[in-house]
């Protein structure tokens, strides 16, 4: 039987992308938690270029970069497909996945920012949410995948879940429902999907951990 291993870290939105894909397709896997401050030799061997999680290892062969992993999973295990079959629809889906991937840096940017930098980071988040509201979600009734989630929904999961964690620890409301009704509605729909609900990150633990981490970071900055 083929062996699937996933190297991950409990906080990482990119790791959760892979977990949800594997769960959705019913693929058994072994999960290995990595301490990102003390990466295992095995992780460094499997991902020498980026040295990051997630890394999927299938039959001893490593696949790195979450979107590359998702596409691999979708191709090897075609049940519950994560991308449209039609080439044009797929090109559109891939466009939005790339858009979401290219905006992932906003999480850390907001987390690390203070004062003026925070205002700038919030502005960038609002611009991103506006594109989701005015472009990405046009014509989307429930989820990007229709009634079920697909790779586009999974790619935007950092907006659905991790933005909320950041809002919580920073005491900010960025995705205001009256300003972003489509995004807010999509977030609720995303969170209510069984595979997401049943494999939901520990956001309380994240908030506590990240709040503390941010305090330490800001204190050391001002020292």
């Amino acid at each position, binding site marked *: 039987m083929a062996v699937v291993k996933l190297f991950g870290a409990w906080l990482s939105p990119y790791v959760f992308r892979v977990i949800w894909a594997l769960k959705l397709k019913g693929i058994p896997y072994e999960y290995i938690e990595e301490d990102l401050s003390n990466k295992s030799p095995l992780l460094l061997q499997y991902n020498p270029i980026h040295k990051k999680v997630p890394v999927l290892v299938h039959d001893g062969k490593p*696949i*790195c*970069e979450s979107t590359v992993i998702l*596409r691999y999973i979708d191709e090897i295990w075609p049940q519950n497909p994560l991308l449209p079959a039609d*080439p*044009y629809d797929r090109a559109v889906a*891939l*466009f939005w996945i*790339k858009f979401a991937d290219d905006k992932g840096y906003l999480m850390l940017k907001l987390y690390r920012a203070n004062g003026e930098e925070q205002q700038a980071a919030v502005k960038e988040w609002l611009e991103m949410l506006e594109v989701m509201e005015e472009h990405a979600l046009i014509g989307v009734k429930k989820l990007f995948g229709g009634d079920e989630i697909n790779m586009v929904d999974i790619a935007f999961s950092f907006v659905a879940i991790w933005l909320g964690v950041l809002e919580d620890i920073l005491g900010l409301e960025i995705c205001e429902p009256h300003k972003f009704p489509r995004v807010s509605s999509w977030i609720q729909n995303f969170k209510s999907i069984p595979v997401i609900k049943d494999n939901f990150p520990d956001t309380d633990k994240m908030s506590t951990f990240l709040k503390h981490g941010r305090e330490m970071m800001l204190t050391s900055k001002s020292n």
Partner: protein
Amino acid sequence: MAGELVLLDFWPSPFGMRSRIALAEKGIPYEYREEDLRNKSDLLLQMNPVHKKIPVLIHNGKPVCESVIQVQYIDEVWHDKAPLIPSDPYQRAVARFWVDFIDKKMYELGSKIWKTKGEEQANAKKEFIECLKLLEGELGDKTYFGGESLGYVDVALVPFYSWFYAYEKCGDFSIEAECPKMIAWVKRCMQKESVAKSLPDQEKVYEFILQLKKVFGIE
């Protein structure tokens, strides 16, 4: 399947070159439209409202944006000739990984080489060469990244060659001296008509960079 194909592009864009090569490899006729990026056409703004960038591939009136997505789309729709993306899922994942690596590194590092000076430029040069060496490692003894024929990674990477002369002049270094295997691979690619015809002359690109430096007020 054929239908109407338009490519909105800008001659020095390495991203546009990717789509040009893919279309040429498969012998697909299309209309090339040059965009003036200081005065973008209504069509461009309409077809790529999110990024307002080239290249945009318009197939039967419907836009495909992002060069790597265009290459994949072209490969899928015109799958019977000159396949670019590996058929094996694992090889496909490896190819996608390297295209992602190229996208994350090459343009940004290259830009730093011609835009900056001093320590910032030195660091960019160092990292740029390191990236090329990693790519050389991936190429190994193969003729192309795609094996015996041009593949996805080749198409994604080779356009940056048209900027090498500009990087070398601005950065005062020799890419061939540091990465001879890379240049040998480039030369093999340039023997293909699809590549040679899709890449602009390096001197022309250098002149263009010098103009940009004037506009940006960079010494």
